[in-house]
C-alpha cells in the first residue's frame, strides 16, 4: 500500500541545516592534505597560433611545483581531444577542445598551460610569467557574419564556419503560404546570456599510486560523464576512477559537460603525486565556461483570415562558439520547440550552426527553448497586430485542445522519439493565467495609466517543454544496520533539493519519516551508471527509480519479516521503521534488527528464507520525453525617457504533472523566471569585432537583483503523465523559457503609442531608448 504522507506536501528541505550554518562542502572548501593549487595560462586572443611556450622563469618561482604545457601532459593524453557528448550525423565538423591547446587557440581564455603551486596566489604569480609566442589570426565574432563569404574561419584547418545543418519539418509549407490570407515575416535575434551559478567551476584530484586510481571531486552536473572522459583519456577501467560531486553551488546547464580542467588536474595530480585543485574565478568563468548566446531567426507565419495558423517556415542561425562539446543539440531543440502549444499544419525550418571564435555554447537553462518560444510568441503577436486581434485571442484560436492528447506534432525530438505531447490543457492554462493576471481589465488600466503619462503594457508567453529525457537514472535503496534507509543515486544536485524530493518518494513507500533517510548522490562510487542533471529530468528519472526500488525493497522487508515470524507476507506491515504482524498485539522487528539479521554471523548459515540483500536497485528508462507546459503573463511599466522597465505583476500557470513538493516547484519556477527576466532585460555577453569579450565582470554583465524580480503569482495545474510511475514532468526550466517572450511583448505593449516592434532581447534601457528614438525618427520622416 502506498500512502501519500510526504509526496505532494511542502516538506522542508533536508539540505538546509548544513547550508545555513556554513557546513556545506563546496569544491573549494575541500581540505585535502598536501594540496597544491592550479592556475591556467589562457589565451588573450580569440584566434592565434603559437609554437613555443617559455615557462623557465615561472618554473623557478618560489612555491611553484610544475608548469605543464600540452607536450608535458602524459603520453595517453597526447593528440587527444575531449569526447563529443552527443554525436549527430548532421555535424559537418565535430571538433572538441584539447585538454591544453597544442598549437592553435580559438577563443579568448582557451588554456595553453597550467601552473601548479603551493597556493593559488603563487600559481597566478607564476602564470603571469609564462611567455607564449602568439601569432594572432583574424577571428569570427558573430554567427551571422561568420556565414558570409570571406568571413575569417574559426579554425585555421577549416574552409568555412559551418558546424552542421539541419532541415526539419512536415506538411506542405509552400501550399500553406500560397493559400494564406495573411503572412507575417520577421527577423528575431534573441541573445541567451550565460549561466552564472554563484559558485564557479572547480575540480580537485587525488591519485592513488598504489591502486593506480583517481579520486576526483568536481563541481559538475554530470559526474559520470567526467568519469567516462577520464577513463577514456587514460585508458583505465571504471573502478579506477571515482568522481564525486561535493555540494554544487548552482549549475543551470554550463556545468553539464566535461571541461579541459577536469582532465588536466587529474593528470597533474598523478605527475606530481600530490592532490591538486583548481577553483575557477569569476573572470575565468566569463571567459571559459560555456554559454548559450546568439540565434538569428528569419521566420514567416501563414494564417487564414481568422488568424488560424496554416504554416511556419524559416531559417535559424545558431552560434556554436569555437567547439562543439554538446554537438548541435540546442538548435535541434530550438527548431522542434517552436510550434509550442499550437496546431501547426505545415512547418519547415532550415538550421545552420555556425562556428565563431567565442567560448563554446552548450545547453543553458531552457536549452534553445527560450529563443524558439521568443520567435513563436513574437510571431503570434505579429499576427494579432496585423489582423487587429487581441494577442490572447489569436493564441486561443490555435491551441491544441486537451481532448486531442496525446498529440503527435509530426516532428522527431532530440531523443529520437516523435514529438508526442502526452498530457496537458493548454487553453485552460492560458485562461487561468489571464484570469489571475487581470487581463480583461488591462485595457482600462492602460488607458488610466496613459492619462497620467505612464506607459504600462501586458504580454503573454506560452510554451511546451520536452522534459524528463532518457536514457535513465538509477537508485539503490538499502536498509542500513543502524536502522536508517539510504538512497544512493547517480544524480548530482546543484540546489534542486534532490535529497528532499527523493526522500519524500522513498519515505511514503517505506513508511518512515523523511529524516530517517540518507541520500548520497552524484558519486560514481555508489552508483555505477548515471546520465546527469539536465533537461529537467531528475525527478522523472531518479524519482521514478527511487519509487520502483522502494517498492521492491518494501516487498523484501515484508517477506523477510514474514519468514522470521513464520507468517504470510500479507499478514505483516511496515510501521515507522519496523515490520510488524498486523493486529494490536503483533510481534515486530525493527529495520535495524532486520538489517543486522541479513548481515549474518561469521561462519553461521543465514536463517531459512533470509538473503543478505536488504536492498533494491533500479534504473528508470523513460520511453520518450514528457511534456510540461505553461502560460506566463507579464505586466510592466516602462519609463520612456530612461528606458527603465519595472515588472508590476508576473503570473505563471505551470503544469509539470504530479507535484512532489509544491514548495520546491515554486522555488524552481520563481528562480527560473528571475533567470528569464535577466535574459529579457539585462544579460548580454558583448564581444568586439575581434571576438574579445567586453563583459567580464558583474559590473559589465548585469544579473537580476531583488529590486527587479517580482514575487510571481504561481498557479499549479497537474496533468499527470502516464509515462512514469510518479506522473511527474520536469520543472527546472519552465520558469525561464517563456519569460523573455512575455516580458518583451509587455514592453512593446507599453510602448504602443510609439508604434514600435521589438524583435531582439535582452532589451536594456539603452536599447529601449534607441528603439523609441528610431520609431520617432521614422514618424518624422514619414511626415
Amino acid at each position, binding site marked *: 500500500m502506498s500512502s501519500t504522507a510526504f509526496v505532494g506536501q511542502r516538506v522542508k528541505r533536508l539540505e538546509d541545516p548544513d547550508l545555513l550554518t556554513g557546513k*556545506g562542502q563546496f569544491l573549494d572548501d575541500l581540505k585535502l592534505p598536501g594540496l597544491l593549487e592550479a592556475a591556467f595560462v589562457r589565451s588573450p586572443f580569440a584566434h592565434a597560433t603559437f609554437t613555443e611556450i617559455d615557462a623557465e622563469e615561472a618554473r623557478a618561482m*618560489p612555491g611553484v611545483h610544475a608548469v605543464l604545457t600540452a607536450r608535458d601532459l602524459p603520453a595517453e593524453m597526447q593528440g587527444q581531444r575531449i569526447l563529443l557528448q552527443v554525436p549527430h550525423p548532421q555535424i559537418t565538423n565535430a571538433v572538441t577542445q584539447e585538454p591544453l591547446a597544442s598549437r592553435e587557440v580559438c577563443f579568448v581564455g582557451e588554456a595553453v598551460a597550467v601552473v601548479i603551486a603551493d597556493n593559488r596566489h603563487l600559481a597566478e604569480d607564476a602564470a603571469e610569467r609564462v611567455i607564449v609566442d602568439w601569432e594572432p589570426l583574424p577571428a569570427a565574432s558573430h554567427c551571422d557574419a561568420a556565414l558570409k563569404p570571406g568571413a575569417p574561419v574559426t579554425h585555421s584547418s577549416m574552409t568555412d564556419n559551418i558546424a552542421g545543418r539541419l532541415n526539419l519539418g512536415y506538411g506542405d509549407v509552400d501550399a500553406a503560404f500560397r493559400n494564406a490570407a495573411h503572412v507575417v515575416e520577421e527577423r528575431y535575434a534573441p541573445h541567451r546570456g550565460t549561466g552564472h551559478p554563484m559558485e564557479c567551476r572547480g575540480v580537485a584530484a587525488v591519485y592513488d599510486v598504489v591502486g593506480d586510481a583517481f579520486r576526483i571531486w568536481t563541481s559538475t552536473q554530470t559526474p559520470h560523464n567526467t568519469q567516462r572522459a577520464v577513463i577514456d583519456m587514460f585508458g583505465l577501467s571504471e573502478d579506477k576512477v571515482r568522481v564525486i560531486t561535493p555540494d554544487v553551488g548552482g549549475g543551470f546547464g554550463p556545468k553539464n559537460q566535461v571541461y579541459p580542467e577536469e582532465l588536466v588536474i587529474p593528470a597533474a595530480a598523478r605527475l606530481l603525486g600530490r592532490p591538486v585543485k583548481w577553483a575557477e574565478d569569476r573572470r575565468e568563468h566569463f571567459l571559459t565556461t560555456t554559454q548559450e548566446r546568439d540565434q538569428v531567426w528569419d521566420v514567416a507565419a501563414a494564417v487564414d483570415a481568422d488568424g488560424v495558423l496554416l504554416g511556419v517556415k524559416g531559417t535559424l542561425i545558431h552560434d556554436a562558439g569555437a567547439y562543439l562539446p554538446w554537438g548541435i543539440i540546442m538548435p535541434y531543440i530550438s527548431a522542434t520547440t517552436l510550434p509550442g502549444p499550437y496546431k501547426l499544419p505545415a512547418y519547415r525550418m532550415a538550421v545552420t550552426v555556425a562556428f565563431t571564435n567565442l567560448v563554446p555554447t552548450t545547453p543553458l537553462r531552457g536549452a534553445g527553448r527560450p529563443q524558439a518560444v521568443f520567435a513563436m510568441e513574437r510571431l503570434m503577436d505579429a499576427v494579432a497586430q496585423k489582423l487587429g486581434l487581441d494577442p490572447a485571442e489569436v493564441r486561443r484560436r490555435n491551441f491544441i485542445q486537451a481532448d486531442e492528447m496525446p498529440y503527435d506534432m509530426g516532428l522527431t525530438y532530440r531523443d529520437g522519439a516523435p514529438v508526442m505531447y502526452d498530457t496537458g490543457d493548454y487553453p485552460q492554462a492560458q485562461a487561468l493565467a489571464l484570469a489571475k493576471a487581470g487581463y480583461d481589465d488591462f485595457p482600462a488600466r492602460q488607458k488610466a495609466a496613459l492619462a497620467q503619462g505612464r506607459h504600462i503594457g501586458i504580454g503573454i508567453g506560452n510554451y511546451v517543454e520536452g522534459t524528463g529525457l532518457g536514457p535513465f537514472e538509477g537508485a539503490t535503496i538499502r536498509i542500513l544496520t543502524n536502522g536508517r534507509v539510504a538512497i544512493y543515486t547517480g544524480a548530482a544536485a546543484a540546489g534542486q533539493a534532490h535529497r528532499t524530493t527523493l526522500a519524500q518518494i522513498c519515505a511514503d513507500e517505506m513508511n518512515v519519516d523523511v529524516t530517517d533517510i540518507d541520500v548520497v548522490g552524484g558519486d560514481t562510487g555508489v552508483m555505477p551508471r548515471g546520465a546527469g542533471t539536465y533537461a529537467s529530468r531528475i525527478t522523472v528519472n531518479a524519482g521514478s527509480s527511487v519509487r520502483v526500488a522502494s517498492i521492491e525493497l518494501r516487498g523484501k522487508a515484508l517477506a523477510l519479516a514474514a519468514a522470521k515470524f513464520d507468517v504470510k507476507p500479507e499478514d505483516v506491515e511496515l510501521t515507522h521503521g519496523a515490520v510488524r504482524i498486523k493486529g494490536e498485539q503483533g510481534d515486530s522487528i525493527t529495520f535495524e534488527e532486520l538489517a543486522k539479521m541479513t548481515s549474518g554471523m561469521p561462519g553461521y548459515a543465514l536463517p531459512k528464507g533470509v538473503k543478505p540483500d536488504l536492498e533494491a536497485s533500479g534504473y528508470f528508462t523513460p520511453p520518450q520525453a514528457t511534456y510540461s507546459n505553461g502560460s506566463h503573463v507579464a505586466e510592466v511599466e516602462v519609463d520612456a525617457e530612461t528606458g527603465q522597465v519595472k515588472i508590476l505583476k508576473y503570473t505563471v500557470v505551470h503544469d509539470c504533472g504530479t507535484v512532489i513538493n509544491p514548495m520546491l516547484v515554486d*522555488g524552481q519556477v520563481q528562480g527560473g523566471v528571475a533567470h528569464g527576466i535577466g535574459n529579457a532585460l539585462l544579460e548580454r555577453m558583448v564581444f568586439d569585432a575581434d571576438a574579445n569579450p567586453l563583459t567580464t565582470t558583474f559590473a559589465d554583465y548585469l544579473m537580476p*537583483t531583488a529590486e527587479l524580480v517580482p514575487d510571481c503569482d504561481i498557479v499549479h495545474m497537474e496533468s499527470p503523465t502516464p509515462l512514469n510511475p510518479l506522473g511527474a514532468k520536469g520543472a527546472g526550466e519552465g520558469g525561464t523559457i517563456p519569460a523573455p517572450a512575455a516580458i518583451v511583448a509587455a514592453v512593446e505593449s507599453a510602448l504602443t503609442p510609439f508604434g514600435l516592434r521589438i524583435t531582439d532581447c535582452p532589451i536594456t534601457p539603452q536599447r529601449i531608448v534607441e528603439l523609441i528614438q528610431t520609431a520617432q525618427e521614422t514618424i518624422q520622416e514619414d511626415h
Partner: protein
Amino acid sequence: MPDALPRRRITLTVNGKEHSAETEDRYSLADFLRHGLGLTGTHLGCEHGVCGACTVLVNGEAVRGCLMLAVQAEGCRVTTIEGLADDDGALSPLQQAFMDNHGLQCGFCTPGILTTLTAYLRDHPNADEPEIREALSGNICRCTGYDTIVRAALAAARTIREGAKA
C-alpha cells in the same frame, strides 16, 4: 624573481574566539578566513565586490570579504556564517526563517545574504518589503528569484520584534 612576499601577524576575534595568525599582506579577508582559519562557510562568488556572497560582519557592519584585506581586520570583531547560530546550535531567527520559507536553493550565496540581513534587521527591525529588497540589492542569488529570501527576512523581522517585546 620577486622579493619575499610581505607577511605579518594579525590578531582578531572571529565568531567570539580570538585568533592570531600570519598572513600575506595581499590576502583578502575572505581568503584569510577560508584558508588561514579554515572557516570555509564564507564563499567567494566574484572577487570584485558585486555578488555579495563573501559578506561578513566586521565590528557588526556588513563588509565584502573580497574587498577588504585581512591585515585591515587587525583588532576587529568578525562574524561569519559559522557564528550566526547560538552556542548551543540553535539557529538564529533569520536562519530558521530561511529554512521555514525555502530561502535558499544551492546555498552558495546564502552566507553573504544571511550576514547582510543579520546586520540590516538588527538596525531596521521594522523594515518593510521594499526596504528589504533594497537592502538585498547588493547580493546576487541565481537560484531563488529572491522572493522566498524576502519572505524569510520579513518573517525573521517579526520574530525579532516579538522577541524584543517579550
